[in-house]
C-alpha cells in the first residue's frame, strides 16, 4: 500500500511527556510491597569462592534474605543464562570470573538497607591466575577461564580451538590475499588498539519482577528486546514461554546495551524464589563496570596497492577481549558483524578477515552501536592513510581509486546496483573546504577557534554499511475512544523517534490526522514475536509493517482490531556510505587534541523525520569523537578503573566539535518507505578521520585510542615511557625499513 496523503511531521509523540517529567521510565514505577535487591559483586577477577558469610547482613533490620547460587539452583536447576551462548550463571557458582560478577543478592525492605547490608557480606576467595590479555588468552598454555567452553548450549567453538576462544569468524580467502599482497607495489602492516568502553546511556538499568498466580512472572524494566528477554528468562528458569511476560517501558537510551544481561533474569528468579515482587536497580557505576562493556580490540591490518595507489588486497586479523562470558552477545556467531563486513567499501582483488574473541577474566563484552565497526574501521581507515603515504598518493586519491561505485562487485561477491562512495566522499570534502554557514550548528554559527601556535591537520575516513530488508515484527491497530486509532507495537521507544514514525506513517497511509493516532508499546503477551530494537532494523521494518497494517485495516472496514505479523523481506539490501572529514588542532606543548570540526556526508534515500534523522547523525559523530579522544574504561590489573562518569568522560556540549552534515540525497533504499538506516553510521569513521588529522598535524601516527593529551605529549616529546617508545619506535621504522620487512614476509601482531 502506498501513502494516501503526504506525510505530516509533527512534534514527537513522546515530546510533551518527556519535557514535563510525566514519562514513566523503569525506575519510576514503584511496585507495592516489593523487596529491593542489591548484588554482592566479586572484588577479584578470578577465584574460587570458598565461603559466603552473610551473618552480619542478615542481622540488619529490614533484610529478609541473602540469596546465593545454591538457593537458585535448588529452585530452578542448573541451567545457565545467555542470549545465544548460554555460559553465564545468574550468580557465581563456586567460581568467579570477573570483578563485578554477582555472588549473592541481599533482599531487603528498602534499597538503602539492601545496599548497606550487601557491603557487609564477607566472601572468602582462593584466587586463581587472572586472564587479562586477549592475545595471551589464546596461547595454548594460558590459564582457562572455562574448563570446556564448547559444551555450553549455543557454543560456537570446539575442543580443537585455542583454550579460551569464545568465538572465531573468518571471511575471505587467506591464500588469495597473501598471493595478491605478494605482488603489490606497496604494502603496509600495522596494528591498532582500542580500549573497552561504556555505551553511555544515562539511565541505569532497573527491573521489577512480580510473581504471577500459577507460577509465572511479569518483568518490567529496561529491555530493548522484550521478546528475547522473555525467551532467555523462560529457558534459564525452566518456565514455559508464556509464563514470562515482559511489560512495556520506554528506554533512557541503549546504544547497543540493555538487550538482556543476566540481571533481569536474576530479578525474575528472585521474585519467584521470594514469592514477592522484587526490584533490582543498578547504580550507574555498577552498570558501567559489571554488565556488558564494548570490546577492546587489537586489529592488525595488512593492505596493499599497486604503483598508482589502486587497492589490491586487504587482510584484517582482529583479536577482541570478550570478557568472562559470551552470554551478553545477541547474534548466533557470538561475534561482531562490524568485523564480518569490514572489507565492504572498496574494490579488492582479494581479502581475508579473521575476528577472534577471547574469554578473559574481565567484565563480559557486549554490543555497542555498530558492534565491531568502530574498532575495525579505525584500524583500516588509518592503515589506508599509511598506505597512501607509502605509495606517494594523497589519502583522498587512494580512496577515490577504489571506493565502490554502482555496478561494482564488492569483496564478498555481491554486486551493488547503487554504491555512492565517490559522491559521498566528494560531498564531505566539498563541505569541509567551504566556509562555515551560520546555520550549521545552532543559530549563531558556533565554531571552535583554533588556538594560535597549535598545529592543524585534516583527516578523512569512509564507512560502508548495508541496510537489510525489513525484518520480522508485529503490530495491532484498534479503534480507540473518540474516533481515535490506537497502534500497539512490540518494542520500546529508545529515543530514536520510532513511535513517532509509526504515527506519521500510519496517518499518511490512512489519510487521517496524526493527532488521532495513539502509539503504545504493549507487553509480550499482547503481540506476536519481534526481535527487538537493534541492528538498525527498526525504521525499515516498521514502515513496511505499518503499510501492511493500514492495508489490512482498510480491507476489513476499519471497525475491529487488526493484528499483523510480518516476515523477513527478501529484496536485496541497500548500501550506505558515510564519509567524514575532521579538522584538528594539536597543542605541541601539552599534546592536547582539539577537534575543531567534523563534517559528515551521509548517503541517504528518503528521510522520514528530518530532525530525528539529523540527530542520529550528530549524536553518532559526537559518540565517534568520544571514542577517538575521551572514552576508556581503563581496564587493567583485572579491574575497571573508570568506575563512574567523572572518570569515563562522555563529551559535553562544550567539548564537541563543530558539526556539519551533508546529505547525499536521491539514493535507493529498502522497503516501501525507501529508507537507508542511519543509526549506526556516523559513529563509525570518526575515530579514523580524527587520527588521520592528528597524524597530519603532528607527523606522528597514533595507533591506539583514545588520543589523550598524555599519549600525544609523550609521542611528541619522545621522553622515556612506554607510550613514547612504542609510538616513536613504530614511526622510526617508517616506510623503507617497514616495507622491506613486509616484502620479506615478516609477520607481526596477532598471528
Amino acid at each position, binding site marked *: 500500500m502506498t501513502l494516501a496523503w503526504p506525510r505530516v511531521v509533527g512534534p514527537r509523540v513522546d515530546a510533551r511527556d518527556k519535557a514535563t517529567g510525566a514519562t514513566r521510565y523503569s525506575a519510576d514505577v514503584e511496585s507495592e510491597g516489593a523487596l529491593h535487591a542489591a548484588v554482592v559483586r566479586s572484588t577479584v577477577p578470578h577465584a574460587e569462592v570458598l565461603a559466603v558469610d552473610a551473618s552480619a547482613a542478615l542481622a540488619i533490620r529490614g533484610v529478609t534474605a541473602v540469596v546465593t547460587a545454591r538457593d537458585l539452583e535448588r529452585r530452578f536447576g542448573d541451567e545457565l543464562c545467555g542470549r545465544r551462548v548460554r555460559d553465564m550463571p545468574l550468580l557465581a557458582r563456586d567460581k568467579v570470573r570477573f570483578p563485578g560478577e554477582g555472588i549473592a543478592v541481599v533482599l531487603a525492605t528498602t534499597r538503602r538497607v539492601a545496599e548497606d547490608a550487601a557491603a557487609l557480606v564477607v566472601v572468602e576467595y582462593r584466587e586463581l591466575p587472572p586472564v587479562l590479555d586477549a592475545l595471551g588468552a589464546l596461547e595454548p598454555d594460558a590459564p582457562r577461564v572455562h574448563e570446556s567452553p564448547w559444551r555450553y548450549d549455543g557454543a560456537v567453538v570446539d575442543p580443537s580451538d585455542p583454550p579460551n576462544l569464545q568465538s572465531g569468524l573468518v571471511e575471505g580467502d587467506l591464500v588469495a590475499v597473501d598471493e595478491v599482497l605478494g605482488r603489490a607495489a606497496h604494502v603496509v602492516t600495522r596494528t591498532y588498539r582500542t580500549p573497552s568502553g561504556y555505551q553511555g546511556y544515562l539511565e541505569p538499568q532497573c527491573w521489577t519482577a512480580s510473581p504471577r498466580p500459577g507460577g509465572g512472572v511479569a518483568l518490567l524494566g529496561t529491555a530493548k528486546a522484550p521478546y528475547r528477554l522473555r525467551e532467555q528468562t523462560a529457558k534459564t528458569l525452566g518456565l514455559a514461554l508464556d509464563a514470562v511476560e515482559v511489560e512495556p517501558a520506554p528506554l533512557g*537510551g541503549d546504544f547497543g546495551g540493555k538487550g538482556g544481561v543476566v540481571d533481569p533474569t536474576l530479578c525474575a528468579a528472585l521474585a519467584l524464589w521470594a514469592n514477592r515482587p522484587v526490584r533490582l536497580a543498578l547504580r550507574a557505576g555498577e552498570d558501567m563496570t559489571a554488565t556488558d562493556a564494548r570490546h577492546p580490540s587489537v586489529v592488525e591490518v595488512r593492505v596493499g596497492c599497486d604503483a598508482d595507489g589502486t587497492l589490491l588486497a586487504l587482510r584484517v586479523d582482529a583479536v577482541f577481549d570478550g570478557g568472562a562470558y559470551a552470554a551478553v552477545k545477541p547474534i548466533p556467531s557470538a561475534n561482531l558483524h562490524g568485523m564480518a563486513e569490514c572489507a565492504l567499501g572498496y574494490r579488492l582483488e582479494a581479502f581475508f578477515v579473521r575476528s577472534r574473541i577471547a574469554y578473559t577474566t574481565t567484565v563480559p563484552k557486549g554490543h555497542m552501536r555498530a558492534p565491531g565497526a568502530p574498532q575495525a574501521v579505525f584500524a583500516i581507515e588509518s592503515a589506508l592513510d599509511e598506505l597512501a603515504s607509502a605509495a606517494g598518493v594523497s589519502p583522498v586519491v587512494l580512496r577515490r581509486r577504489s571506493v565502490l561505485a554502482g555496478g561494482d562487485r564488492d569483496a564478498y561477491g555481491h554486486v551493488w546496483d547503487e554504491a555512492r562512495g565517490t559522491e559521498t566522499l566528494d560531498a564531505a570534502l566539498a563541505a569541509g573546504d567551504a566556509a562555515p554557514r551560520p546555520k550549521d550548528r545552532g543559530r549563531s554559527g558556533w565554531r571552535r577557534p583554533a588556538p594560535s601556535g597549535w598545529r592543524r591537520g585534516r583527516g578523512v575516513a569512509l564507512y560502508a554499511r548495508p541496510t537489510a530488508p525489513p525484518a520480522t515484527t508485529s503490530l495491532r491497530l484498534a479503534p480507540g475512544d473518540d474516533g481515535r486509532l490506537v497502534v500497539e507495537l512490540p518494542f520500546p521507544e529508545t529515543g530514536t523517534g520510532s513511535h513517532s514514525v509509526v504515527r506519521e506513517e500510519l496517518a499518511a497511509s490512512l489519510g487521517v490526522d496524526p493527532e488521532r493516532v495513539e502509539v503504545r508499546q504493549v507487553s509480550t503477551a499482547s503481540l506476536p514475536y519481534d526481535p527487538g530494537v537493534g541492528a538498525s532494523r527498526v525504521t525499515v521494518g516498521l514502515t513496511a509493517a505499518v503499510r501492511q497494517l493500514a492495508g489490512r485495516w482498510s480491507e476489513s472496514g476499519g471497525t475491529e482490531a487488526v493484528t499483523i505479523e510480518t516476515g523477513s523481506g527478501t529484496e536485496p539490501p541497500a548500501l550506505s556510505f558515510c564519509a567524514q572529514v575532521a579538522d584538528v588542532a594539536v597543542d605541541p606543548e601539552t599534546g592536547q587534541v582539539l577537534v575543531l570540526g567534523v563534517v559528515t556526508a551521509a548517503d541517504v534515500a528518503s528521510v522520514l523525520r528530518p530532525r530525528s534523522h539529523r540527530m542520529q547523525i550528530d549524536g553518532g559523530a559526537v559518540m565517534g569523537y568520544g571514542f577517538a579522544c575521551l572514552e576508556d574504561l581503563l581496564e587493567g590489573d583485572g579491574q575497571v578503573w573508570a568506575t563512574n*562518569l567523572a572518570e569515563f568522560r562522555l563529551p559535553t556540549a*562544550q567539548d564537541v566539535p563543530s558539526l556539519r552534515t551533508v546529505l547525499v540525497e536521491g539514493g535507493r533504499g529498502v522497503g516501501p518507505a525507501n529508507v537507508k538506516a542511519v543509526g549506526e553510521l556516523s559513529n563509525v569513521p570518526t575515530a579514523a578521520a580524527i587520527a588521520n588529522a592528528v597524524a597530519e598535524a603532528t607527523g606522528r601516527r597514533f595507533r591506539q585510542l583514545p588520543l589523550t593529551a598524555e599519549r600525544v605529549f609523550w609521542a611528541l616529546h619522545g621522553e622515556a615511557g612506554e607510550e613514547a617508545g612504542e609510538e616513536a619506535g613504530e614511526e622510526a621504522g617508517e616506510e623503507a625499513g617497514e616495507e622491506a620487512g613486509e616484502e620479506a614476509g615478516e609477520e607481526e601482531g596477532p598471528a
Partner: protein
Amino acid sequence: MKLHARVNGSPFVAEVPATSSLLEVLRGAGLTGTKEGCRIGVCGVCTVLVDDRPVSSCLYLAGCASEADIWTVEGMAERAPSVVDAFVECEGMQCGICTPGQIVAVASMGPDVRDENGVRRYLSGNLCRCTGYGTIVDAALDAQARRRGEVAPT
C-alpha cells in the same frame, strides 16, 4: 528529621532521614520526573532549582533545603512554559532521560546567556548521549529568545 520547604510552588513537608539526598526525597514523594543518573554530580540528569539556583539533587542533602523554594521539571510548565515549549518544538530530546535536567538548567539561565557559546558553557554540566547537543542548544537559544520577547509564543 522533618523537612519543610516549597516544591513547585506548594508547601512540602516530609519526614526524611538526615542523610537523604534531595533526589531521594523528591522521587520518594512521587516526583519521579527528576532522574537518578551518575549520583556523583557529573551528568546533570537530577538537576533541580533550589532558590533559583540549579543544583545536582543527587549530592544535595535534603536537610540543606529546609525552607527552600524548590522547582523540579514537573513545575516547569508553570514556571518556564517557554522553555518546555522550546524543547518540544525544537525536538531537543531523544530518549528523554536528560531532558528534565536540561530543561531545569535552561530555566535557570540569566538573560546574559545569549549566544551559542554561552549556552554550551552553561549546559556543560548536563550530559546527553543521544542528540549530539545540536537540538538542545537550539531549544535553549529559542527559549532565551522567547523570554526576551523576540519570538512570539505559539
